[in-house]
């Protein structure tokens, strides 16, 4: 705007600037329009759904959660479930099975991922190449296909139920899964559990003490071996002292293959293997990138101090790499949890399969059930990322 134009306005006369060019006004209008649009969209959707449901005479509301489900489930390790249980229980059983899969999957994926990631950087050519092809093959094949390969390609070709492969103490393996010996706890067995907890607690305290002592005097303490001894030894001691209250129920042969014992269904095994090996490929890349992100001078300095490659990696490189590794690792954990929903493809009774699948089909209440399912996964995601953010912040504090 030229000075001439400005001068035509008197002081108390408002300058005639197009409102459109006022960013605040424009922003306000855009936001209001967007908000109205979104509200209108949601209103329309809800309204349509209400009309459609009413017209179709479909029941709505969450009353169905108290109704008896009437169908059976073949996997519920911790929650008591029978055909007379309610749909609410079905939800919890599904969530439980999802969590079991996610926790065990994360555990194994992390171990395999770290091993493969370190192996990719190995100076050993064969090991590095094997790790490279492991990563490239696993992460470039769809997970669902890998699940099918494990389930239908590998596990389904195991011998039938009556010709189990005997794995000795581990149990019997056949097309219907692994029949492992089931521990039976007699009275007094809870002492073993408490001893185990006590072992962990004592190890933690010794660890703190050892760390303090090392900081003060430089003396080291074999904390790993001591801890291992305590965590394994105390329960063993308790086991012997309480008169060996744990026995094993072995599967016995019946007309339909092994009976009794603890059956690990093949759907679980297939998902577990597929999820952890697939996610491990991504974790391996993250670990590799994290280690490479540590300045080369750090490893050279540790070698110069006389550390061998193993301790150098463990004491110098990995602690620094972890800071780079953790944020992307979080999203891999989340991915694994969400990917566990592929269980629906092979009938492992996870949340998606039993709740968004079977329960939805039986009740027909799609809106409520899918809403609950999606919100549950959303909550799991948020909780995991909150935990990891906290952990991340804790790790970041170590930086000096």
């Amino acid at each position, binding site marked *: 705007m030229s000075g001439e134009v400005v001068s035509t306005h008197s002081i108390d006369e408002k300058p005639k600037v197009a409102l459109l060019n006022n960013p605040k006004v424009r922003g306000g209008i855009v936001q209001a329009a967007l908000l109205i649009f979104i509200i209108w969209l949601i209103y329309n959707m809800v309204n349509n759904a209400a009309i459609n449901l009413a017209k179709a005479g479909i029941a709505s509301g969450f009353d169905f959660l108290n109704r008896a489900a009437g169908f059976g489930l073949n996997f519920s390790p911790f929650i008591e479930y029978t055909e007379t249980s309610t749909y609410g229980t079905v939800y919890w059983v599904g969530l439980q099975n999802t969590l079991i899969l996610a926790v065990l999957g994360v555990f194994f994926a992390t171990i395999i991922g770290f091993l493969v990631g370190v192996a990719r950087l190995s100076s050993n050519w064969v090991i590095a190449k*094997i790790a490279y092809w492991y990563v490239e093959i696993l992460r470039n094949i769809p997970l669902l296909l890998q699940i099918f390969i494990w389930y239908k390609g590998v596990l389904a070709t195991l011998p039938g139920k009556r010709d189990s492969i005997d794995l000795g103490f581990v149990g019997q393996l056949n097309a219907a899964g692994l029949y492992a010996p089931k521990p039976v706890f007699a009275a007094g067995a809870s002492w073993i559990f408490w001893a185990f907890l006590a072992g962990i607690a004592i190890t933690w305290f010794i660890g703190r003490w050892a760390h303090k002592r090392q900081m003060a005097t430089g003396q080291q303490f074999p904390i790993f071996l001591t801890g291992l001894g305590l965590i394994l030894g105390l329960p063993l001691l308790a086991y012997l002292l309480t008169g060996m209250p744990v026995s094993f129920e072995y599967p016995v042969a019946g007309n339909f293959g092994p009976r009794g014992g603890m059956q690990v269904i093949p759907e679980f095994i297939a998902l577990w293997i597929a999820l952890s090996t697939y996610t491990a490929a991504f974790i391996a890349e993250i670990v590799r990138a994290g280690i490479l992100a540590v300045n080369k001078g750090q490893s050279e300095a540790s070698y110069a101090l006389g550390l061998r490659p193993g301790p150098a990696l463990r004491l110098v490189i990995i602690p620094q790499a972890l800071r780079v590794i953790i944020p992307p690792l979080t999203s891999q954990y989340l991915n694994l949890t969400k990917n566990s929903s592929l269980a629906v493809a092979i009938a492992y009774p996870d949340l*998606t399969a039993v709740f968004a699948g079977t329960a939805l089909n039986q009740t027909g209440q799609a809106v409520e059930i899918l809403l609950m399912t999606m919100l549950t996964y959303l909550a799991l995601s948020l909780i995991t990322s909150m935990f990891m953010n906290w952990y991340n912040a804790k790790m970041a504090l170590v930086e000096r």
Partner: protein
Amino acid sequence: MSDTDSQTALHRAEAGALEIAYVREQLVEPLPAPASEVGVIGWMRKNLFNGWFNTLLTLFALWLLYLILPGVLNFTIFNAVWSGTDRLACSDINQGGELYEGWKGACWPYIGAYFKQFIFGRYPDPELWRPILVFILFFAGLIPMLIPSVPFKRETIIYMLGIFPLVAFILLTGGNIGYNGFLLPGAIMADSELKFWVDYLILTAIICAVVHFIVRGMDGDSRRPIILTLICMGLLGVVLFIASVDFGLTFVETPQWGGFMMTLVIAVTGIAASLPLGIALALGRRSDMPVVKLLSVVFIEFWRGVPLITVLFMSSVLLPLFLPDGVTFDKLLRALIGVALFSAAYMAEVVRGGLQAIPKGQYEGAMALGLSYWQMMQKIILPQALKIVIPGIVNTFIGLFKDTTLVSIIGLLDFLGMINLSHSDSLWATPVQAITSYIFCAFIFFLFCYGMARYSNYMERRLDTGHR
């Protein structure tokens, strides 16, 4: 050895000739390195057997390879069956075939027999040239776009984003889409093709009027926005018109589509639809307007927090309930909507990464030049940001490409769905049927995904120079 060196050596030799009886005037030829240090053996010593731990590792690795490789090769090549007409060709004696007991190997003739279905689904035979032509057109546009040294990038992009989708749509469906009116009540004018265009004109007029009033209400000049609106509506009208022209192609409905073709359709449409949406969401998330920002964050975090399969369930079971009475979407279209919304959230995060990587000075410079927000984004920020995130976009595409297999769970017959369906054919039912088809499927997916990953690596290295 340089000349000066040999000169000094000579001088020294002359000076000390008395003390030393003989000084050799030339250095000895270096001996060849011992056999254990060079060549294959040296390489092996250095890379495989330096130290007991590495030796152990190497032996372990070799043992691992010994476990895996012979089994895989035997199954896929040496023990595999290469010709036959039905399941008997791939069965051992116990199963009624002629192969020896305990035979295990791939059954390739079964893949051959189903090859057409795996690639094209149940697309009618006489019309097969259409999807093949679409494949050719797709790669004809894709390959020049991917190779940086090929000229005419702008033209190629216009072709890929504007012309190809329309041509592909007409070729695959057959075009000749009919429209009904949607605006005027039936009392004024009965539903017909003509009414659609009348309605379309009315709609355009309404939109122009709305734009005009909004802009005028804020004392702005409404000419440019209206011309822009008219151009957009005009282009859309042309596209709609071309889609309605009868080219004499038979109509092929989407339940007849399938196989790898459907996988590509979903992945390519999904990524094409999610890119603009993703950019919008990324800009929204970095916007100063609280409402826009909040909505973008909620949208992105919601879709990123739920598994794709529940999204697909939602689009297949719930979406019909959310639509007005009597409006139905094609099943494939519903899946596409779910996939596009889902990947848009991931795309938004990728683009956001690119936006954040642009130095603040670029924003400040653009603003100092007096550019408006959209001018700044369009001319300065987005070109740089999108260039940085090309590898990220390719990676998102790889992820989406693999995730398309999930549509088989909601009953669409994509590549994996078609393969699973073929297992119910008793003509080829053998114990090795499933694993054979999965190996084939895995191989194809691996080829595509690995290729794209290599490309993304290449781009990453190419783009790495210069910036930062």
